[in-house]
């Protein structure tokens, strides 16, 4: 604007000066009256609109009346022929988003502009009109829009195409009629028109797989000029590849050559898009990855931060699945640790942690220590998590990694960061027995000077469970009692509980614990005193509470066997009266799907969540859920629950998956059903299971699901008996049966009458791997030697022709369902032979270790030597049986 809108304030220096200083909504709305002047001052009007837009942009809102007034005033401005003013009018109308009856007022003016000779008017009027219009008006302007799509001015064509993309959401049937014009526009010479046309064409056809595939086939032959359009094409191509991933036998992937050719494109955005598409191909092989990794490696040393970031982020993702493919970039990666951009540095570090081998750990840790001090907490958390997984991968290195964690624990940091460290230490303690004493000691030191009550209480709780099992429990008492003296009431109370746990488990410490607990009887806080009194009575065993030793331990260490939500509702409903609250009246059934299950796959185990109380893992949650069902309570201890197996395609009417629960003499199938139709209520949902192809199984019980309303998942169960301790296998076919009732979604009430119906589900199998728990050992050699060769069995097998060694290794590991130790599930590229170390627990709680040596020859014949050691010869044989029959 040429002249300042508000007079400059002389007191201010030039720095703080703003043309909008002291602007006020009421005054500007007054000013807007100039729109009604018979002699329009275009410049003045533009300035007022700018002020209005400034107000809106600063977050000011107009009332309905104000907005309507401004809108009507603005429509008057169509009389002016000033182009600049017209542009501002367009902006204003879009900002005001007028209501339907207001739209009619400007429709004619906008339609006039749509057919103007000035290209800029046409383009803008199209965008404004399409933005504010509804379906009825659209049919009237459709003809003009179709014309505009093939307009020779690219700005006009783009405006129409982009508007088409938006309108497709609301009026698909109209936009779909424009296919021919859009197709013509795809051939446009103007880069952006091609981009917009391709985007719209794909969206029109996105539900027609064949059409998308045709589109990709014709365009990949090379008529796309614009880099943006090329990026789109790459996305559509990888979509087509995903959906046609069947042809694995020949090994040739369709369109891969196209993606590879894009790696040589002159635009960096296309190269990146293609490289990323290749790395994200499902089941991508190292050979397919190589060219993509090579271009990304070049990006790593670019002078542009955005390029380095994009490359290192992509490589970081690749490192999760194909660490060996990324090792070539390690040198470039290491130089990025000192990158100015801390996001890039953090990604580089975590990538190195993923690709590193055992020997490079110490050197890496040294580099990271220097790096940690100058990055933000959120990055530190990422690094801590990477170190945790590194430690689980190389348990022998626990000492240096644990030392690192404890040293950063002593440094400054916020809650989330400290929690991540503590969680990591807890997980390491749980998984690496050798690390336990050292780790507990670090935690003890931490709570001496910990500002977070939550972390202190969690650590105390964990200490109570783990501390008594160590070689010298007495050394922890001092740390715990110090909390009672120095901390706030919440921490004091949990320290009291922890003391009691030591007392309950270790008789020699009991007298000393009593002295300490008695001191707590004079605490100023009710909760602390109450706990101390309770524990003194329980542990004292002087008959007051009259509980046996076992009860005491159950009380201290056992978990609450009712869901907290249910307990909360019951407590809310409880009215104070003579009758005491009875915890056994709280319902045990979990209403919706157990929370833990939804996040089970992929999520890292939460460390402190509640170390032994409450469902930390899906397994615990399942056990609780199942034992609450009387029909299944007699089956004994749950051995293993499988990951959910989908029995329906995605986006069908009813989504069902099954979890296989294995007991010693039974299996229970838990069918998780979700009803995705708002107009239906299902009742009495059962699964009819045909076990004719599973001879050793016989159905003993089934528990139908009473009701299954829309979008609220529920479970139906079927139980089978099978020979005790035997890993019986078989195939099961399933039919979902139910009574369906119509629901009026607006009212939410279901009809009285229902109709019986059924729904075919897919088959699934119970396989040998279902009887194997994945349990890792930290030091395989040690465990192997300890197990001894008494029940060893060694045999050799030919696996026939395989795509690659890595594929053969992962297939065998999957068949056995065992845990790969020390990272031996990863096969170096180009390796001719490989040894995998596996461990697990077989049904009947028999520990099993396996050492498998693989070899591959020229024509890709794979042979393997399998050595199994276990505590039971029969089990060793059974493992061989699995491989022989698999």
């Amino acid at each position, binding site marked *: 604007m040429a002249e300042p809108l508000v007079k400059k304030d002389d007191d201010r220096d030039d720095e703080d000066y703003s043309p909008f200083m002291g602007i006020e909504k009421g005054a500007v709305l007054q000013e807007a009256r100039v729109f009604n002047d018979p002699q329009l001052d275009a410049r003045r009007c533009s300035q007022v609109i700018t002020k209005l*837009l400034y107000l809106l942009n600063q977050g000011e809102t107009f009332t309905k009346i104000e907005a309507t007034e401004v809108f009507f005033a603005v429509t008057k401005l169509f009389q002016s022929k000033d182009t*600049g003013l017209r542009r501002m009018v367009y902006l204003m109308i879009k900002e005001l988003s007028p209501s339907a009856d207001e739209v009619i007022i400007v429709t004619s003016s906008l339609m006039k502009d749509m057919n103007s000779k000035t290209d800029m008017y046409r383009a803008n009027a199209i965008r404004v009109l399409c933005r504010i219009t509804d379906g009825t008006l659209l049919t*009237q302007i459709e003809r003009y829009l179709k014309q505009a799509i093939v307009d020779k001015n690219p700005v006009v064509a783009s405006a129409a195409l982009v508007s088409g993309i938006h309108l497709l959401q609301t009026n698909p049937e109209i936009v779909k009629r424009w296919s021919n014009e859009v197709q013509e526009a795809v051939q446009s010479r103007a880069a952006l028109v091609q981009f*917009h046309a391709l985007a719209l064409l794909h969206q029109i056809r996105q539900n027609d797989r064949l059409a998308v595939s045709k589109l990709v086939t014709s365009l990949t032959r090379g008529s796309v000029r614009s880099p943006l359009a090329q990026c789109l094409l790459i996305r559509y191509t990888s979509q087509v590849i995903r959906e046609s991933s069947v042809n694995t036998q020949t090994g040739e992937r369709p369109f891969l050559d196209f993606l590879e050719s894009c790696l040589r494109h002159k635009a960096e955005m296309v190269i990146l898009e293609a490289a990323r598409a290749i790395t994200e191909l499902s089941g991508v092989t190292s050979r397919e990855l190589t060219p993509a990794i090579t271009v990304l490696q070049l990006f790593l040393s670019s002078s542009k931060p955005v390029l380095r970031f994009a490359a290192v982020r992509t490589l970081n993702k690749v490192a999760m699945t194909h660490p060996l493919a990324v090792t070539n970039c390690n040198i470039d990666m290491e130089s990025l640790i000192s990158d*100015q*951009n801390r996001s890039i540095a953090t990604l580089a570090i975590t990538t190195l942690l993923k690709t590193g081998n055992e020997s490079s750990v110490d050197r890496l840790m040294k580099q990271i220590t220097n790096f940690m001090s100058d990055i933000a907490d959120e990055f530190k958390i990422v690094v801590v998590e990477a170190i945790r997984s590194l430690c689980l991968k190389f348990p022998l290195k626990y000492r240096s990694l644990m030392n690192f964690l404890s040293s950063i624990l002593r440094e400054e940091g916020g809650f989330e960061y400290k929690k991540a460290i503590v969680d990591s230490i807890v997980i390491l303690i749980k998984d690496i027995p050798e690390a336990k004493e050292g780790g507990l000691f670090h935690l003890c030191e931490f709570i001496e000077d910990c500002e977070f009550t939550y972390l202190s209480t969690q650590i105390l709780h964990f200490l109570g469970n783990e501390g008594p099992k160590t070689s010298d429990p007495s050394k922890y008492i001092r740390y715990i009692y110090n909390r009672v003296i120095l901390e706030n009431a919440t921490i004091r109370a949990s320290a009291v509980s922890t003391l009691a746990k030591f007392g309950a488990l270790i008789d020699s410490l009991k007298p000393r614990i009593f002295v300490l607990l008695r001191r707590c009887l004079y605490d100023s806080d009710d909760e602390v005193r109450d706990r101390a009194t309770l524990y003194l009575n329980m542990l004292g065993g002087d008959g007051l509470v009259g509980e046996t030793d076992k009860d005491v331990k159950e009380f201290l260490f056992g978990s609450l066997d009712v869901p907290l939500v249910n307990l909360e509702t019951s407590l809310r409903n409880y009215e104070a009266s003579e009758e005491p609250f009875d915890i056994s009246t709280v319902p045990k059934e979990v209403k919706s799907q157990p929370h833990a299950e939804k996040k089970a796959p992929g999520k890292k185990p939460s460390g402190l969540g509640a170390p032994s109380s409450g469902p930390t893992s899906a397994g615990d949650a399942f056990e609780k859920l199942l034992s609450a069902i009387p029909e299944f309570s007699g089956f004994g201890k749950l051995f293993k629950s499988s990951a959910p197996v989908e029995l329906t395609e995605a986006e069908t009417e009813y989504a069902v998956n099954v979890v296989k629960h294995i007991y010693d003499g039974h299996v229970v199938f838990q069918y998780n059903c979700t009803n995705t139709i708002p107009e239906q209520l299902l009742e009495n949902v059962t699964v009819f299971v045909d076990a004719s192809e599973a001879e050793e199984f016989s159905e003993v019980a089934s528990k139908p699901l009473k009701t299954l309303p829309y979008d609220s998942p529920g479970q139906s169960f079927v139980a089978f008996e099978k020979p005790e301790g035997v890993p019986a296998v078989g195939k099961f076919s399933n039919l979902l049966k139910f009574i369906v009732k119509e629901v009026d979604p607006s009212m939410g009430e279901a009809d009285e009458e229902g109709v019986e119906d059924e729904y075919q589900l897919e088959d699934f199998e119970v396989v040998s791997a279902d009887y194997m728990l994945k349990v890792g050992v930290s030091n395989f050699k040690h465990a192997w030697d300890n197990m001894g060769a008494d029940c060893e069995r060694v045999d050799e097998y030919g696996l026939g022709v395989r795509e690659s060694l890595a594929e053969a290794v992962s297939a065998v590991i999957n068949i056995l369902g065992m845990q790969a130790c020390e990272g031996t599930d990863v096969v170096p590229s180009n390796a001719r032979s490989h040894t995998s170390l596996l461990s697990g627990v077989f049904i009947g709680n028999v520990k099993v270790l396996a050492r498998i040596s693989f070899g591959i020859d020229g024509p890709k014949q794979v042979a393997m030597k399998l050595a199994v050691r276990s505590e039971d010869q029969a089990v060793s044989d059974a493992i061989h049986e699995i491989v022989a029959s698999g």
Partner: protein
Amino acid sequence: MESCPTVKSILLLDSEGKRVAVKYYTDDWSTHSAKLAFEKSVFTKTQKTNARNEAEIVMFDGYIVVYKFIQDLHFFLIGGDDENELILAAVLQGFFDAVGLLLRNNVDKKSALENLDLILLCLDEIVDRGIILETEGSVIAGKVATSGLDSAGSLTEQTISQALATAREHLARSLLK
């Protein structure tokens, strides 16, 4: 991944993190306070970095933020975390270049506010409801600038087009009934 590259927001803030001009294209931040909170965290997370030569990048809360600073102005462009960073950077560069051309290389907060109409038109020509319209700075600036230069064509041309327009208007009205 979104099938079409999408911009979630464009922010132009001053050296204290205050708004000069902002545009939001998604409902990720539905309230005014959510928007302000987001702007604040974007600003503080990038404040200490040097983005004066090359565009810089940061990722947090599931968003990719590419940004560039000049004088007391901070340019930000925000996309989803699965977006192609280089596409976002290209759009940012287009915005940055266009503003430079429109303000005749005198790019600072003062002249941006004095020419806020040009900045707003510029934003309007770059992204339409999240979809990228144009990435080339000179083209964007050209589209914005033409509006000020050629005011209406010749008189005769006007009368003819006016007559045509009135006829069309008539037609449209009768259709609307």
